[in-house]
């Protein structure tokens, strides 16, 4: 029993942190909002060099063959900086390559691992696909299986979204039998795995985002003065922020355990991932509410950087299954006389 991350995992996280610290300032995020450029190319190529995009692709397919445990801290870190690029969505698509037969003429498998071919997965759990305009191709599911479609074969329609960094799209597409990668009998489980992994990465990002809005709030209340003293010295303000600290500390191990369960393909992974998504959604939403309250009116402005992180929280909250969806998914498992709830049930 060892719940720690390895030094390697921590230093992998630290290298992403350094990259984000240097290249993903809020000014850079904002500049993309007003630009025709959809990606920060310099940042993106550094991210590619780091290997995250192909991290979940097996080594013999040209990837790094890493696991969810190796990545969860990085996903958390990318949330802290509200990284706009669809790093995790692309990495996610890589995770299912191993199930896909090697008969694709475009050789997109290798190109996906290299990061010069974006495949996004359009999962019906998500009402829309963020960043679809950046994709070269999509994985899609139809009644009879899992399909591949290039961007020319699918029509994408932009919809209004809340987070200016995450444009959202509806995908219209007609399945072509020749592009079916897997029959439904095989794809159902793969599709579930995608959902679990998407939810895990989302949960981890939500942890990072929570830490960020907490840090921003702490900095702000230390410096803002009213009644002749820092507002952070008022207990009503202190206790709001302390509550976030408590909930965040108790959410982290839940998300890390979910990463472990996915990586080890444990039978409890559905339950664990749903736990993770529920707690991370809860703490991050509470944190944004608290952050805006402790900022006062400045937090309610476009100018305040708080919006960058809060909007990402609200956006990720509904991705890969809302809390309500995940709660429904695990309620039968919990509310049953034979459920594992109870002493000794944590790691079975």
């Amino acid at each position, binding site marked *: 029993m060892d*719940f720690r991350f390895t030094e390697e995992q921590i230093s992998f996280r630290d290298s992403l942190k350094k990259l984000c610290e240097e290249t993903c300032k809020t000014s850079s995020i904002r500049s993309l909002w007003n630009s025709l450029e959809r990606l920060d190319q310099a940042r993106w190529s550094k991210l590619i060099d780091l290997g995250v995009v192909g991290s979940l692709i097996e080594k013999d397919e040209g990837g790094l063959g890493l696991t969810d445990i190796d990545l969860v801290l990085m996903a958390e870190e990318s949330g802290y900086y509200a990284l706009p690029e669809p790093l995790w969505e692309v990495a996610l698509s890589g995770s299912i390559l191993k199930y896909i037969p090697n008969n694709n003429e475009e050789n997109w498998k290798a190109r996906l691992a290299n990061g010069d071919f974006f495949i996004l997965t359009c999962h019906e759990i998500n009402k829309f696909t963020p960043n679809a305009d950046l994709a070269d191709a999509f994985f899609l599911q139809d009644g009879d299986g899992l399909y591949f479609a290039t961007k020319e074969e699918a029509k994408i329609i932009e919809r209004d979204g809340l987070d200016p960094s995450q444009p959202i799209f509806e995908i219209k597409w007609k399945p072509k039998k020749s592009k079916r990668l897997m029959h439904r009998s095989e794809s159902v489980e793969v599709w579930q795995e995608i959902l679990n992994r998407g939810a895990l990465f989302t949960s981890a990002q939500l942890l990072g985002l929570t830490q960020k809005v907490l840090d921003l709030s702490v900095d702000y209340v230390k410096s803002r003065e009213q009644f002749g003293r820092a507002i952070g010295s008022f207990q009503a303000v202190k206790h709001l922020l302390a509550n976030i600290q408590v909930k965040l500390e108790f959410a982290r191990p839940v998300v890390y355990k979910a990463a472990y369960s996915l990586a080890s393909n444990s039978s409890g992974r559905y339950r664990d991932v749903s736990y993770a998504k529920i707690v991370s959604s809860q703490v991050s939403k509470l944190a944004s509410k608290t952050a805006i309250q402790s900022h006062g009116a400045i937090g309610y402005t476009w100018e305040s950087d708080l919006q960058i992180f809060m909007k990402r929280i609200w956006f990720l909250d509904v991705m890969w299954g809302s809390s309500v969806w995940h709660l429904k998914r695990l309620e039968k498992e919990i509310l049953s006389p034979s459920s594992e709830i109870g002493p000794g049930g944590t790691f079975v």
Partner: protein
Amino acid sequence: MDLRYTKQQESFRKEIRKWFKSNVPKEKLLSFDTKEGFEQHRNWEKKLSEGRWTAITWPKIYGGRDCDLIEWLIFEEEYYLANSPGRVNQNGIFLLGPTLIEYGTDEQKERFLPEMISGKEIWSQAWSEPNAGSDLAALQCKAIRKGDKYIINGQKTWSSRASFADWAFGLFRSDPNSNRHQGLSFLLFPLNAEGITIRPISQLDGEQGFAEIFFENAEVPVENLVGNEGDGWSITMATAGFERGLMLRSPARFQLTARKLVNLYLNKEKNASSGIREKVIQCCLDAEAYALNTYWTACKLIHGGKIGFEASTNKIFWSELDSEMHELAISLLEAEGSLGINDQISSEAVEWIKGFLFSLAGPIYAGTNEIQRNIIAERILGLPK
């Protein structure tokens, strides 16, 4: 990261399960806040010590098993699964014991630890005073050194188990001219000493769970001073850290309550109001989160990490969870009318009601949750005083 138990851990679990299966009393013991129940629980402590189960994390030479924290967690899981009685000597075993092991002299360890392990001496703690609750540093009860004795005068209060216990440990002002955190000393004293009067206080449930302690020229030998004279505050903070932190409230306790809550919900589902379902699930998730956080912290500690002010987040989390679970149970019972005063009230309902009352004290004792939030805000988040 590897979240599997080792073979040794699995077999340790089996060993515990086997022992408890044949040794946990078949009849539920009376409450340890009654004279008779107190003695029953003392016997249980004795029995535990015969199996060497009283304080498994203590070093072997003091009657422990040198277990690490993961083994301790396994032990606690089995302890609660077996529906074992509560620990009447928890102040001794989980708070004073570790304090003595860290700060006590060899003589003190030899004198006190074996009697603690065997249940022969049951301990209570004496920090609070009528005018020193949250603001413990305002305490006034004096212990002034005279020759090889300390002479104690003043009053302590809210001392859990003191109504029937044998010994107490507490914090006293040893320098009459000192202020606040300075000039305090940590002393051990027998509750039957001359000059000490115990006045039990009835709690919300009517039982005498805590007591006032009055001192009138009570004499305590200097051998009973823990640490140096004047260093009492830092030793007390270490003890309080054990209380808020890992050891006193093992996850198994809340996981068992969550399990019982699920069972209760399944029985009463028909009559339950619609919002309850989600809340019950949430409690189960929180009990799991508490367990995961404890395993997480335990792994950190085993590998040389330290527990700091996280102890305060811990205390808030478990006390609020416990309170929420019991409130839900009460609503579920209420929906069926089983809370009414009648002779058909089930023993299950009685247990929930008692648990509910006690859960209300969780956010108060061991430092109120408001004080914990102050600590988190100031010490972890770095907000100004």
